[in-house]
């Protein structure tokens, strides 16, 4: 290799040059299609009144409810989802493929169907809800708990699949060595497996939170629309649209900001570093 080539390997030369128009044009069109609506949102935003709109009682209430419920849904997903991922990846479940498909289903299901399904189970006349009401006087639908359940239902799969994938990609021999050192399966999970898949747990939790925060269909079906208890940000935005589009845009900006933050967290180094220091 000569100095004139600047250390470039021969293979790289063939890859440079202009991309073919057939790919360039639709590719750029897709990029513009994704970016323009968000740009419009930013342009139309009532920047001067933004703080005022967001700080009003009902909006702050919806934002606070959304953050609270999405955080709770994420925590519930972590507590239940990591063990489920372990069962899928390591548990030698009979019909593991079917179980994995079942876990994926809420991801591809229209959220409103999820809401109807939750009502069929936990509604006042639901399969379980009927008894909960009759025996314990517990009614779940149209409460803040219902919001958390709806959010968990749609977001849990994100966490499970993320952790399941990491576990299946993990070299089993580390767990084998741990066993030869006398560690029980639980100790191995806690001290070897979990720290090794921590980045995937973090990434899954962030995706889970983002999905829970945006949840609309299942929430409005199963939890309804009561200010302070079940009216989350997405529902508040939808309602605001009917009365004051400016307010809807302002609220949307807040969710865009939170989503952008989530994206930064997802890509930032501390998330991957988190996995290596635990």
């Amino acid at each position: 290799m000569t100095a004139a080539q600047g250390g470039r390997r021969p293979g790289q030369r063939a890859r440079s040059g202009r991309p073919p128009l057939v790919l360039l044009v639709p590719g750029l069109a897709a990029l513009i299609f994704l970016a323009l609506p968000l740009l419009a949102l930013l342009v139309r935003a009532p920047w001067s009144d933004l703080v005022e709109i967001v700080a009003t009682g009902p909006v702050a209430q919806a934002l606070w409810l959304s953050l609270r419920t999405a955080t709770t849904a994420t925590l519930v997903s972590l507590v239940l989802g990591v063990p489920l991922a372990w069962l899928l990846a390591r548990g030698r479940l009979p019909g593991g493929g079917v179980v994995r498909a079942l876990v994926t289903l809420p991801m591809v299901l229209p959220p409103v169907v999820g809401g109807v399904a939750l009502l069929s189970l936990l509604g006042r006349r639901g399969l379980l809800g009927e008894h909960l009401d009759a025996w314990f006087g517990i009614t779940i639908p149209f409460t803040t708990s219902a919001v958390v359940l709806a959010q968990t239902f749609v977001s849990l799969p994100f966490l499970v699949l993320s952790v399941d994938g990491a576990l299946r990609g993990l070299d089993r021999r580390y767990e084998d060595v741990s066993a030869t050192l006398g560690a029980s399966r639980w100790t191995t999970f806690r001290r070897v497996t979990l720290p090794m898949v921590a980045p995937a747990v973090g990434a899954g939790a962030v995706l889970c939170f983002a999905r829970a925060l945006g949840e609309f269909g299942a929430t409005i079906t199963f939890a309804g629309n009561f200010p302070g208890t079940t009216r989350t940000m997405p529902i508040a935005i939808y309602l605001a649209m009917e009365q004051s589009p400016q307010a809807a845009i302002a609220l949307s900006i807040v969710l865009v900001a939170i989503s952008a933050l989530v994206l930064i967290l997802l890509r930032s180094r501390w998330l991957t570093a988190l996995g290596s220091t635990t």
Partner: protein
Amino acid sequence: MSGAAGRGPAGRATATGALEVRDAVVRRGEFEVTVDLTVAPGEVLALTGPNGTGKSSVLAALAGLLPLDGGTIALGGEMFDGDTAWVPPETRGVGLVPQQHLLFGHLSSLENVAFGLRARGMRRREARAEAHAWLERLGLADRAHLRADRLSGGQSQRVALARALAASPRLVLLDEPFAALDVRVRDDVRALVADALRELAIPAVLVTHDAGEVETLATRELSLR
């Protein structure tokens, strides 16, 4: 390095006995090998033979990571693997030094070595002191608090040795343990391991390609074909 000899757990008497393997059928996929061997406490059996003859698979079977397809494995009269018996790896007390070290990268060298002691319920402070003695012995005291994934190949291999030996195994399995070591430290570490094995007085199985290693470390050789 030698000044630290005699410290740490090496002097502790470990209750053990001979490793007895009878007509053990080790199968992994299409591949199958049958072995029959006895290793007395204090003896080092060298397992040699070309690549692909199943040396590592035999070690996996001894450690309890690969159930036998037939035959028996017993240690000190305790049946590990047989028609009616099965002892899982975590209760066998068999130390394994894998070829690729397989250190827990997120833990420090010290925590790696203390891992087995902690897993068996030793208190944190004691386990760390004992682990430290092992690292000192292998010339790695200054690397004790370094994360294991930051160690060089040779250092990793020594930590892997310390991790297996610190757990007071009743049998130790070494899968080409010196292959990754620098020539300059190889002889030193080999001598240290020979010392430690003598002190522990447990049976050992060593997989190697190195005729010199068979000469210096092993008491006997079994060649797989």
